[in-house]
């Protein structure tokens, strides 16, 4: 699948932003006044910035409001609702914390639930697709949630504690890669089932429908850069998990330490998300003789 920068930005940033909102809502830290202001600004900037980036991916954004209509069936629509509800509830909670020094725990807990549900809904947009076997597994939502929790723990300066979710993220990344590598063949889709012609013999594409490219090939058959995938997996693990964990464990706790660890982690998360797309193969590739 084509790793569109807008979608990578969106899923990583909004995942971190909603995670942080969730932790603020749960009262993991309960800042007030100016400190609360900076925490909430960071959280909202990441969550809203991510959502805005995602609209860049739309071909026809002027109909965007209609995306709220199909929450009964569509995970994308559910995500839109959950995101807006989270922002509204946590907005109220933030006003209480910043201006009145009050933490309304009912609002906070509701907002936290909504935050994590938003991240879950985002992940289900991908995990629901049977056509992309690598995504179509339960590890996908777990991985998205664990990234979100890692970012939140790091940002709420739980230095020692943050190592735990980071380790979980590392394990989930590896599991997702390893089981993802087997998902396509496990799905049972082959060029023979795609054409229904396997009864005669081995099938291969002789001539594609056209000499050039098309939307489907650009969007769903992304092969560039896959040969670097293994190296990138190592880099991802180092940046997203190992280095931030080492910094948090070894360096003295300070805003600077946290910032450095978090920035490294974010870069690693971008790499992880890039791989999430670039390595994912869509079954339509079978009709084009490539995956």
């Amino acid at each position, binding site marked *: 699948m084509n790793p569109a920068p807008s979608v990578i930005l969106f899923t990583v940033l909004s995942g971190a932003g909603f995670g942080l909102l969730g932790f603020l809502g749960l009262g993991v830290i309960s800042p007030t006044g100016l400190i609360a202001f900076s925490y909430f600004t960071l959280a909202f900037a990441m969550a809203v910035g991510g959502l805005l980036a995602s609209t860049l991916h739309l071909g026809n954004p002027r109909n965007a409001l209609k995306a709220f209509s199909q929450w009964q069936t569509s995970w994308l629509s559910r995500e839109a609702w959950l995101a807006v509800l989270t922002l509204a509830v946590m907005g109220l909670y933030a006003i209480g914390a910043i201006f009145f020094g009050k933490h309304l725990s009912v609002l906070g807990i509701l907002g936290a639930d909504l935050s994590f549900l938003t991240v879950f809904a985002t992940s289900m947009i991908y995990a629901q697709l049977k056509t992309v076997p690598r995504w179509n597994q339960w590890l996908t939502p777990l991985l998205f949630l664990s990234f979100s929790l890692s970012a939140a723990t790091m940002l709420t300066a739980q230095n020692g504690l943050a190592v735990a979710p980071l380790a979980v993220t590392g394990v989930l990344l590896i599991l997702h890669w390893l089981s993802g590598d087997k998902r396509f063949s496990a799905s049972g889709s082959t060029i023979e089932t795609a054409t229904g012609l396997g009864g005669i013999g081995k099938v291969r594409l002789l001539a594609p429908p056209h000499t050039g490219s*098309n939307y489907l090939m650009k969007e769903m058959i992304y092969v560039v850069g896959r040969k670097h995938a293994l190296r990138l997996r190592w880099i991802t693990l180092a940046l997203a998990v190992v280095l931030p964990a080492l910094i948090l464990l070894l360096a003295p706790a300070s805003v600077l330490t946290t910032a450095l660890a978090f920035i490294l982690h974010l870069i690693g998360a971008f790499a992880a998300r890039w791989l999430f797309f670039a390595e994912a193969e869509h079954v339509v590739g079978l009709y084009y003789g490539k995956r």
Partner: protein
Amino acid sequence: MTSLPTHTEKKLGLVIDLDICVGCHACVTACKGWNDQGYGAPLSDQKPYGDEPEGTFLNRVHSFEITPENGPAQIVHFPKSCLHCDDAPCVTVCPTGASYKRSEDGIVLVNEDACIGCGLCAWACPYGAREMDQAAGIMKKCTLCVDRIYNENLPEADREPACVRTCPTGARAFGDLADPTSAVSKSVADRGGFDLMPELGTKPVNQYLFPRIKDFEGDLDVLSPLLDIQPEATGISGWLDKLLGKL
């Protein structure tokens, strides 16, 4: 609504006979032609006269080669457009309700006025039947020529999808697959029509008919032993061998 109807009165669709199709692409051209002037945003082209021409098509013809364990390979031309699936995953993922399946005839359509061009439906379709028009930013797909089949302004003979009307070999048939007495249902029953990627559970309405298996009686060609070029051949055969090896 993007929930699927529990039941459709008719199941209008195509039956494509892989034994007959000669891969002429006339159906591709006819589809593009009709859908440039009727329903919704026209199917655009990008750099049609440039070095990398591209465009939106709702029907495309692939050609596959099948090699049996014994005997010669055979070539099958394989037209593919939306299969108007009964359990259409493209419909349920749509956030706006733009994608829907009609309960009266089972046709899967996109309401272009509601589409945001998110592309999720194209991701959800296993068959590559939906393409985002790059000029309009809107999702396009086969409408089964909904603007022809019910169009009383057209002569009766033209009230079928443009691809079917145009196919010079009669490889494409249009009809109601829910009606066991229809010609399409009968041919499916007689010839063992099959689903594409049945393992994905989309329950396509469109059906494909199997091509005949090629006859095979021993050697393909009486001259074939003479064509057997040895690996270390010299002279002209050696040169040919090298040249062919490079192709």
